[in-house]
């Protein structure tokens, strides 16, 4: 968290749609991803905006089911690729990558960007790698989709990448199958595969969730080192604030398909504004505190994305829902407001109320 200061403003302000191409490397504007189902319209992502610059890391945090994966798949264009006979996802908003708006781009053109300009690492490397192809074959394929080279050259490249991500004896292991690797090695291989084309944007969707605790830190270190080396923009998605504390320059907290707080990592960590963020911080495992002293993890269950609670989506679970006047939390949806430069949150509590609750009730227990 040493070099947080200089990146303070990268999350930027919410942007009005239909404005011209942005200057940020990646800019998502009012992204909505809705799935029609038999039970109703699932509003998995419902108006999300953020910016990300090259060389920066954005951490997207939220409980499971808050729309993090749907967001990342949306950026990759994977809600529209190969959805045979399924009811089509309804996607709106804008996704600007390096000056190009992806939602209005021809799908085959977006496919050409996938794996080359933007790449993705998935949660469970065992199920994300094809069980019938060797690690090497799969990396070779990723490379040859975008590079017109023969298999031998691609294989050399694959070995080079395996070596780079710290797989011992890469020239031998290149022919191994995913089931012959340990969990950590598989995730390393997955990272090697995603970086084989030097993508400008890397999205890591819960890259350590499926791994042993001891391996988690190694994988995070690896991602950080590689980012320094390749200078790409990284989105790291997690339900564990501890993960982004290590890596992220900026943090975006998602709840019920929307952003409830975002800002520079140190602001979100040390001066969090939203009651949901307080809950997440309280449920973070910490070695230096006894279990009993810690805040209770956020009580209750995530909201239904079909019938999102009116007003503030967090109100059924929020201990402070009655503080703002006139039942406003249950009737009016709070908009994102800037408390400090670049630090935004969506809550009806007044700055004074927040200040008081944070310093008197929350911070002492963390």
């Amino acid at each position: 968290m040493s070099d947080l200061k200089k990146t303070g403003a990268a999350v930027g302000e919410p942007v009005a749609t239909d404005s011209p191409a942005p200057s940020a490397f990646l800019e998502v504007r009012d992204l909505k991803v809705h799935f029609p189902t038999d039970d109703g319209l699932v509003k998995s992502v419902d108006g999300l905006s953020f910016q990300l610059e090259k060389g920066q890391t954005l951490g997207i945090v939220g409980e499971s089911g808050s729309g993090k994966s749907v967001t990342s798949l949306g950026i990759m264009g994977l809600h529209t690729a190969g959805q045979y006979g399924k009811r089509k996802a309804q996607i709106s908003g804008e996704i600007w990558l390096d000056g190009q708006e992806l939602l209005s781009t021809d799908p085959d053109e977006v496919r050409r960007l996938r794996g080359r300009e933007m790449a993705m690492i998935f949660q469970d490397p065992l199920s994300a790698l094809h069980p019938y192809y060797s690690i090497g074959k799969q990396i070779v394929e990723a490379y040859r989709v975008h590079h017109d080279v023969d298999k031998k050259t691609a294989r050399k490249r694959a070995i080079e990448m395996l070596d780079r991500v710290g797989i011992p004896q890469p020239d031998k292991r290149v022919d191994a199958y995913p089931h012959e690797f340990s969990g950590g090695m598989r995730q390393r291989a997955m990272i090697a595969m995603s970086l084989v084309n030097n993508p400008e944007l890397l999205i890591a969707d819960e890259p350590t969730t499926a791994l042993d605790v001891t391996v988690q830190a190694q994988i995070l270190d690896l991602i950080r080192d590689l980012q320094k080396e390749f200078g790409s923009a990284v989105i790291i998605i997690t339900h564990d604030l501890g993960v982004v504390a290590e890596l992220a320059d900026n943090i975006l907290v998602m709840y019920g398909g929307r952003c409830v707080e975002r800002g520079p990592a140190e602001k979100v960590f040390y001066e969090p504004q939203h009651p949901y963020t307080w809950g997440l911080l309280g449920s973070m495992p910490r070695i230096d505190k006894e279990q009993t002293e810690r805040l209770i993890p956020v009580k209750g269950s995530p909201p239904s994305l079909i019938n999102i609670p009116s007003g503030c989506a967090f109100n059924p679970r929020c201990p402070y829902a009655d503080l703002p006047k006139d039942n406003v939390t249950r009737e009016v949806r709070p908009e994102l407001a800037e408390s400090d430069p670049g630090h935004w949150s969506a809550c009806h509590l007044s700055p004074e109320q927040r200040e008081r609750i944070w310093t008197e009730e929350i911070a002492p227990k963390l």
Partner: protein
Amino acid sequence: MLAYLIRRLGAVIVMLLVVILTTFFIFYVLPKWSGQDIAVLFAGKNSGAEQLEGIRQKLGLSDPLLVQFWEFVKGIPLGRDYGSGDDVTHCGAPCLGYSFRTELPVWETVKDALPVTLALAGGAAVLWLIGGVTVGVVSALKRGSFWDRGAMITALGGVSMPIFFTGMIAMGVFVHSLGWISMDDSLTTKDSIGTWVETMILPWIVLAFLQAAMYARLTRATMLEVLGEDYIRTARAKGVTEPVVIRRHALRSTMTPILTVFGLDLGILIGGAILTETTFNLPGLGQEAVKAIQGKDLPMILGVTLCTALAIALANLVVDLMYAVIDPRVRLG
């Protein structure tokens, strides 16, 4: 892969020995225990005692069972001499004994019938595998479309129709009414390929239609499941084009459960060829089995059983090898 192949071949040989032991026990030992005289079965009820004794001598029926069994097994790779002294009949390898009914070597009959059954099963299998998988894949990719619904309803019809029904209709139309096809009911290996194909084409299509229906449904369901797998999403995330995602990534995984069923079906088809062969009047192992059982022709029953078992084992071996090629976890296992 070679180690895997050797292991599997070993298993086939062991399996065949078990089959020989079981059939030998059922057809030679059980009658003896229940007081039946095999020599009588051979020579007929009205034979004289002297004649029966001669037969016992020649066939070695008085020898201890273990010796009889050993002589039988040894005869398969090495051939066998029946009788002793001047009265010796040589039965060349692979010797499966002599038919009680025709008094010809069992192998001579089996040799002609086996290719018919194999051609019937093999041809139909290739047809239904290709047809069923193709229809299933297209249905999955066009899920919910007019084509999908139509194919699946046709498939349901195919699954529910018995072979003798469809077979009779097909023959009635194409052989008897239209006369487009004439079927040779005494096929041998000396006949031309043209004759074989003309005789087999209707049974192939009828059998394949019934089975393809089931395979289309299975393929469709498996394909849809595979398309939801994480590694399919990974392939798309790499920028692989959709046709390649289907062919290289999805189809290969779809084939494994299909091959498992295919191995079983192939066995059932070869072993249960009686129904098809009777329907179409084809001179295969199934027909020979019926004749042998009706004539209480023990050596023939044993021979046909053994050859059928061998054919099933080899078919399964081929399927298992295909499986191992597709899924590395099987061969590295």
